[in-house]
């Protein structure tokens, strides 16, 4: 972890390439007819090669250059994960532009904000649904010149001088390429490592979203560091399902394959992830804690519904796995008897479990973007899916610290990846320095200065501690620190993640800043609480009535009491309320990765909160 070796001017090269476009062209040349992407069309997986990838990106890039895309121009991209997302991304980046992904769950309002803030002149949209967002807010986006739509479905009669379809843009691009055959290759060679390759807007819980500029060098650094921490092989199959607008999925599904040449399979939709996971059976799988929790609950429900004998086998098998996992954690090799026991149970049970969830080929699972319960990591380890947690943020261009499969310090987010310096400042805030630190916020130098100091330290806003082994433990967000009316400092994240460990709690927000005591707003896990109610014959009709049912309230009260026992009395949660509307990713209270946003929750549910402090 010697920062000096990573001086800002030291070039980072991968196979002789110092920018993403060069690496992309290089990989496409090498892999040519190998499968780059698979996408399901009418129920059948179809393969697309690296040559398809390059040709499409080239046509799109040239089409944009012909239409006047300049070096450093942002291009907005509003689509679900699909191969065209990557085609456009590479087309834009090779042509010298900057890709700015927009979440499909964003409203027309938010789209207008992002387009205006970035100053994008081009917008790519997936289909008529997303196009309607532009149509709704087009008069608020005067700077936008051209909208390119991927799908024609439902738009056959639609005509607008500002709108063309992707095949038209690509056709024009190919024609332009005939006339100027060197243009695209010249453009992609012109990129410099310090140029911005992507613009990623951070979900602004305080103030409007800010566009983080990630450079080619940032990404290449991630790739070199990744090879040391995580292994990707050429024959690997990956499954892409998290939003590509998010730095995590972007790295995993767009950038890492450029390095390793593995194939990316696109999930059909967020609803079909579990089926797609089984079909693809990826070699490594990156997901957010929420999804790992879902896989766990699915298996636990299967266990409940199994025969008595099946349950007994399941429990014995997991117990054997847990015993081995406990040894591994202590750094000991499991004794021969345990090894044998595990091998038997693995053949009989665990192997089938892994096949059922589609992780039978997985060398590792990775989790990030939100805190995960250590118990869950151990459990997956026990069934033979090594799960490692990492830490990072948009501003650190993705990963900053990570655990390794062979040295998994569960409960921590691992040591800093090679090349990254890690420091805790006196307030407890985590500081990072190194080639992973982003270039700054788009058009907001004052915000950049608040985040990256003169010495190059990135102020993460997270609070944590570093153990003697160098592994980092995150305890919460600096901004979220609650100071109760009694003057006690409390980091709510610790209490919240404890609450979330309950299968019945999907998310929780602890309230208590400048208040006499702590309270909680809790979002219940619909599936598991419904099952609880069903098993106990608790009548309910819709979600609100489920939340209002007395046995459900009692259930959550018991979960809260459980958490209270684990913390000091002063930090006890005195009261709680359930959020009785079923939130979706479109709601402003949730991030696209389905986390509650404290700020929004506090204002939107003010009445509920105030009710908990009445008469106090």
């Amino acid at each position, binding site marked *: 972890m010697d920062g000096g070796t990573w001086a800002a001017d030291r070039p980072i090269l991968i196979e002789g390439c110092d920018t993403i476009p060069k690496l992309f062209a290089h990989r496409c040349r090498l892999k040519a007819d190998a499968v780059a992407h698979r996408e399901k069309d009418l129920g059948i997986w179809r393969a697309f090669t690296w040559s398809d990838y390059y040709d499409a990106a080239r046509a799109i890039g040239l089409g944009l250059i012909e239409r006047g895309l300049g070096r450093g121009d942002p291009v907005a991209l509003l689509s679900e994960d699909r191969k065209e997302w990557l085609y456009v991304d590479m087309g834009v980046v090779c042509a010298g532009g900057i890709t700015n992904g927009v979440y499909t769950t964003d409203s027309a309002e938010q789209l207008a904000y992002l387009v205006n803030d970035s100053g994008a002149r081009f917008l790519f949209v997936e*289909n*008529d*649904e997303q196009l*309607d967002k532009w*149509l*709704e807010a087009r008069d608020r986006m005067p700077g936008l010149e051209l909208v390119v739509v991927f799908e024609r*479905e*439902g*738009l056959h*009669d*639609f005509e607008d001088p500002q709108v063309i379809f992707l095949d038209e843009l690509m056709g024009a691009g190919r024609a332009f390429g005939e006339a100027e055959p060197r243009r695209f290759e010249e453009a992609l060679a012109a990129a410099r490592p310090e140029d911005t390759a992507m613009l990623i807007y951070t979900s602004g819980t305080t103030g409007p979203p800010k566009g983080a500029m990630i450079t080619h060098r940032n990404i290449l650094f991630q790739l070199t560091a990744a090879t040391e921490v995580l292994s990707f092989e050429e024959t690997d199959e990956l499954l892409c399902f998290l939003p590509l607008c998010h730095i995590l999925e972007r790295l995993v599904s767009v950038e890492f394959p450029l390095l390793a040449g593995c194939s990316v399979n696109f999930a059909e939709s967020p609803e079909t992830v579990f089926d797609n996971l089984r079909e693809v059976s990826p070699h490594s799988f990156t997901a957010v804690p929420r999804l790992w929790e879902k896989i766990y609950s699915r298996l636990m429900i299967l266990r409940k519904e199994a025969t008595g004998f099946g349950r007994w086998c399941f429990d014995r098998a997991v117990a054997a796995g847990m015993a081995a996992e406990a040894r591994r954690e202590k750094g000991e090799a499991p004794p021969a008897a345990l090894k044998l026991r595990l091998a038997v149970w693995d053949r009989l049970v665990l192997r089938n479990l892994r096949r059922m969830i589609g992780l039978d080929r997985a060398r590792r699972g990775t989790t990030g973007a939100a805190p995960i319960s250590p118990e869950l990591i151990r459990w997956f380890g026990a069934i033979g899916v090594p799960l490692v947690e990492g830490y990072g943020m948009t501003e650190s261009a993705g990963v900053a610290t990570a655990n390794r499969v062979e040295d998994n310090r569960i409960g921590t987010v691992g040591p800093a990846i090679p090349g990254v310096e890690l420091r805790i400042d006196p307030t407890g805030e985590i500081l990072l320095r190194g080639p992973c630190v982003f270039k700054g916020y788009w058009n907001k130098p004052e915000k950049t200065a608040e985040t990256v100091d003169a010495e190059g330290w990135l102020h993460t806003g997270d609070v944590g501690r570093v153990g003697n082994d160098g592994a980092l433990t995150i305890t919460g967000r600096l901004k979220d620190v609650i100071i109760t009316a009694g003057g006690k400092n409390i980091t709510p994240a610790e209490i919240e993640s404890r609450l979330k460990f309950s299968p019945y709690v999907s998310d929780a927000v602890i309230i208590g800043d400048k208040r006499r005591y702590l309270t909680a707003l809790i979002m219940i896990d619909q599936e598991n609480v*419904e099952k609880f*109610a*069903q098993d106990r*014959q*608790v*009548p*309910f*009709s*819709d*979600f609100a*009535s489920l939340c209002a049912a007395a046995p459900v309230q009692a259930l959550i009260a018991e979960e809260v009491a459980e958490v209270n026992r684990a913390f000091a009395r002063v930090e006890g949660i005195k009261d709680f309320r359930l959020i009785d*509307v*079923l939130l*979706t990713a*479109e709601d402003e209270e949730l991030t696209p990765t389905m986390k509650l946003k404290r700020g929004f929750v506090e204002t939107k549910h003010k009445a509920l909160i105030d009710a908990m402090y009445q008469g106090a």
Partner: protein
Amino acid sequence: MNVATRHRAAEVGETVLELRNVETFYGPIQALRGVSLEVPKGRIVTILGANGAGKTTLMKTVSGVMDPEKGEVLLEGERISGMDPDAVVKRGVAHVPEGREVFPFLTVEENLRMGAFTRSDTAGIADDLALVYDYFPILAERKGQPAGTLSGGQQQMLAIGRGLMTRPKVMLLDEPSLGLSPILVKEIFAIIRRLNREQGVTMMLVEQNANVALRVAHKGYVLELGRIVMAGDAEKLLASADIQEFYLGHQAGDQQRGQKRWKRRKTWR
């Protein structure tokens, strides 16, 4: 109209029919995934849902044609789930099935008398027959005609009339609008409303035609894939954006292109 209205022990507004966590299966296929609902006395409660949502299964579970795997059906607080359909009818649940299902070779009057098969009070039956003819004059006109020769609308009236002849505590109406012209739908629903207002008949109404159903009902539940996703007063449901878009065919404001193919995501609130 001098027939006595049928107030029974329960007061208006008290729960006549209650379902608690009902789960019903067709072999391995779970059609109802835990449904709880209440039908108060003297009210019309409608169950909305698309094809395959489980509406008819729900009706069949109440009337005893199907037995729930879990959960219970209570009529005035007494458990009726698990009973045979004829016992359920005797207890006061009349099922007017989807597609009428009148006896085609029996006359109209014979069909109506079949409805009173479980009763022995001759005077009461005569009164009720008069009541049915009063509400459905066309049936009186054609009482000697085989039911199979009636039009679809008339058969529907006959089926409802037959249900009334059991003097039900609650009447289950399964898609009375099915296959009827808009004028007939209007007519039948006008009669349903009158029966409810004037005779205090409690009804559980299953409909695909959400528009008419919510206009006559007091309360509604939305069933999707065997689960209740929304519940509330009819006015609340009528005002909900999801009901408007998915059941009433209204489209939310964004109509820039004059057409819309994609569907909003449902949130049911």
